[in-house]
């Protein structure tokens, strides 16, 4: 087997992964860093982010304000030391992106422009039209081309972490173009594989968001933290789930129910005003807005369409000029995928799964409990987002923690020795497993699509916006049966060359593992906080649950849930107040 090696290996070529690679190349130029990704880096899901990235830059704003907005937005489940580090490093990271060429929108005098965003008291969201993630990712990717130390393995699908001697020392991956299975050893591995939205049927997420890194870490013994916190973005298009950015509301859009009524005012989110007021009404936090939709639906005040219930987003009053200048992509998406022009018509929207607050448990340097294994971005949970993420914090998070994880991993790699030959044996075992269980197996009765559809059904019914004990308990059993059925899977495609059925099967197995951690964590958290709402435990319970849930893989493969206290520094838990 061909053995490749690097000093630091970054898995995932999105914003966090590329930022981590640059951090290694800049701070430790003698190390070589490899970025391995199952798609070309410019296809990573960072590219779809639209609204913006938050950082304190304007006079009248302060780090404490940003921290408070983030902590209260997270319903006090955010680790406050991490949030303090995050808001402090955010402005310099964003300026660095600007120096690297990111085309941020500007004020007439040439300074960076900021826009208001949900849950934030003061405007601090930097934006590049409404394709911020696209510009951020391309600027980062093009900047990585500068560094010869960064070696890329494009379209390599990681199937297993190599763990030896209590340390993570590399990965096994399928080179998609040839089908060859390769071992890549490294002194430190950083997982930046993004979230797991495709566990759910309706999501803004791309096809590639299957929780790969989360499952890899989980199987290697690292715990997954706060997996029950799944963010539903209030405005996604029905059927496709395509994201209509929060910026549409930040610029002044209104959410209207069946009667044309701005229904958010009924749910303690403030009073409707013609211009948007920060932290009020449509600029409230995402979890509350999604929950309001469900309540409206229960009251029968939502529209019913061929793809489920929906409400309307009204941006007609913003005018064509503003729409084309500030949110042109929204107009483009509506024209193309719904056939309506938002300048003159109302946009049908509904909550769709968007972001995973939970992920691989790391400290504020991006280190997981498994030595040599680091994580950053949506795949990780530090946690700064707590029980609910504020819009525009994620793009900043990938930069801040991507850099942190890169530096920490580089320091670890400098201090530790390289791989031992015993790793090759592990890699050979993995190759045999892949060949026997997937490529050469014949006669299995199961197929990928039905198992995946049923997983979607289970997650939608039991791990949606409102959850209950009975539904969750049933879900754990049903998911376990799905995992058993998965063992009987066989593929149509026995080719080695670019076998996307094999990768789809592996992704499904990752998603089943991750789905189990979500459902078990949700079952054990018997309270409602942020985006995790239990209809049987509707109150927040700080006495018992001001803690992060940790899901570890037990002997039988199912998750064992433990708890870990939240780090509180300067902001004692309080009430989340919006609209007042």
């Amino acid at each position, binding site marked *: 087997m061909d053995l490749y090696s690097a000093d630091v290996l970054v898995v995932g070529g999105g914003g966090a992964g590329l930022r981590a690679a640059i951090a290694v190349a800049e701070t430790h130029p003698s190390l070589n860093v490899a970025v391995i990704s199952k*798609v*070309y880096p410019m296809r990573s899901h960072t590219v779809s982010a639209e609204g913006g990235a938050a950082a304190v830059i304007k006079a009248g704003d302060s780090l404490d304000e940003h921290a408070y907005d983030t902590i209260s937005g997270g319903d006090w489940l955010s680790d406050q030391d991490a949030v303090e580090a995050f808001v402090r490093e955010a402005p310099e990271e964003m300026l660095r992106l600007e120096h690297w060429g990111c085309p941020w929108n500007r004020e007439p005098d040439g300074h960076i422009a900021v826009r208001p965003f949900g849950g934030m008291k003061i405007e601090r969201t930097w934006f590049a039209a409404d394709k911020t993630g696209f510009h951020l990712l391309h600027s980062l990717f093009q900047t990585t*081309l500068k560094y010869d130390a960064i070696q890329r393995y494009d379209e390599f699908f990681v199937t297993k972490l190599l763990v030896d001697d209590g340390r993570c020392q590399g990965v096994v991956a399928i080179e998609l173009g040839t089908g060859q299975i390769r071992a890549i050893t490294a002194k430190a591995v950083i997982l930046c594989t993004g979230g797991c939205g495709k566990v759910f049927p309706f999501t803004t997420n791309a096809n590639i968001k299957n929780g790969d890194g989360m499952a890899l870490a989980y199987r290697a013994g690292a715990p997954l933290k706060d997996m029950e916190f799944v963010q539903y973005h209030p405005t996604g298009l029905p059927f496709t789930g395509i994201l209509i950015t929060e910026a549409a509301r930040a610029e002044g859009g209104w959410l209207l129910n069946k009667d044309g009524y701005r229904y958010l005012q009924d749910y303690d989110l403030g009073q409707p005003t013609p211009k948007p007021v920060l932290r009020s009404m449509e600029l409230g936090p995402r979890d509350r807005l999604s929950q309001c939709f469900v309540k409206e639906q229960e009251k029968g005040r939502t529209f019913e369409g061929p793809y489920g219930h929906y409400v309307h987003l009204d941006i007609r009053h913003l005018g064509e000029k503003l729409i084309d200048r500030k949110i042109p992509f929204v107009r483009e998406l509506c024209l193309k995928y719904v056939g309506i022009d938002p300048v003159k018509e109302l946009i049908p929207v509904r909550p769709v799964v968007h972001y995973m607050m939970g992920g691989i448990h790391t400290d504020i340097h991006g280190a997981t409990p498994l030595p040599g294994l680091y994580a950053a971005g949506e795949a990780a949970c530090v946690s700064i987002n707590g029980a609910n993420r504020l819009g525009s914090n994620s793009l900043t998070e990938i930069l801040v923690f991507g850099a942190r994880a890169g530096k920490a991993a580089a320091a670890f790699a400098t201090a530790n020795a390289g791989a031992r030959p015993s790793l090759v044996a592990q890699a050979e075992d993995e190759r045999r497993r892949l060949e026997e269980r997937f490529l050469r197996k014949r006669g299995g009765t199961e197929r990928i699509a039905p198992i995946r559809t049923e997983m979607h059904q289970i997650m939608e019914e039991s791990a949606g916006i409102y959850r209950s004990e009975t539904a969750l308990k049933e879900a754990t059993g049903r998911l376990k049966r799905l995992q058993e059925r998965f063992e009987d899977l066989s593929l149509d495609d026995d080719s080695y060359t670019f076998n996307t059925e094999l990768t789809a099967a592996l992704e499904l197995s990752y998603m089943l593992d991750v789905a189990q951690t979500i459902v078990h964590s949700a079952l054990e958290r018997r309270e409602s906080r942020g985006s995790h709402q239990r209809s049987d435990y509707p109150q927040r319970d700080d006495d018992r649950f001001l803690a992060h849930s940790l899901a570890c893989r037990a002997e039988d493969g199912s998750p064992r849930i433990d708890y870990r206290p939240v780090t509180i520094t300067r902001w004692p838990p309080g009430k989340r107040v919006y609209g007042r």
Partner: protein
Amino acid sequence: MPATVALTVARYRPERESEPTFETYEIPFRKDWVVLDALNHVKDRLDGSLSYRWSCRMGVCGSCGMKVNGVPKLTCATFLSDYLPGPIRVEPLDYFPVVRDLVVDITDFVRKLKQVKPWIIREDGTSPPAGEYLQTPDQLDAYKQYSMCINCMLCYSACPIYGLEPSFIGPAAIAMAQRYNMDSRDQGAAERLKILSDHDGIWQCTFVGECTKVCPKHVDPAGAIQQYKLTGATHWMKSLLLPRSAR
């Protein structure tokens, strides 16, 4: 509206055949479906061995470029209803080697992208300001259009010059070079000039204009190349007539 429509898809399994073949699938017709939805239906229900790339399904990642009825398109943004009554022919992009079914190898482009130095180049010895570089909205508009490229490769697949002369740097790479040349923060125009004025650079382009026609993001690479020809030619004249000042 018909109940089904025929999808004729190019297949290529290198372990089994030496040349691509075509297979036709009957798929349900839905007016909301794009070609990508049809391909997913084939893969999920009819033939799991069909390989193709896709990710965001909203026209921003650039993965799903393929030829639909002979025209390079993003299959996530191409509606079945525009192709009734069918059959709809789906093939891999032209001028790139076919790896498998609808998957082509794009490493040539990635290499060329790196060649044009698509990053902010500053003069040696200067460090960036403490805050942001100032850039007015008008300065941003000067290059904004060229920054919209999603690297989908439809332009390369439409460019006959790239098909005839594979060493041509190509539309997207040159548009990306222009994006940086015209960025007020960049000072690398001279470095890129050498690469772009080379034999395989802008002078291979004969302004067929197909690249701009197929670009889903209205980047207008043809425009970028022609404008750069003016810059390149002016620079060449200057270096001829005023050799000292051009340097």
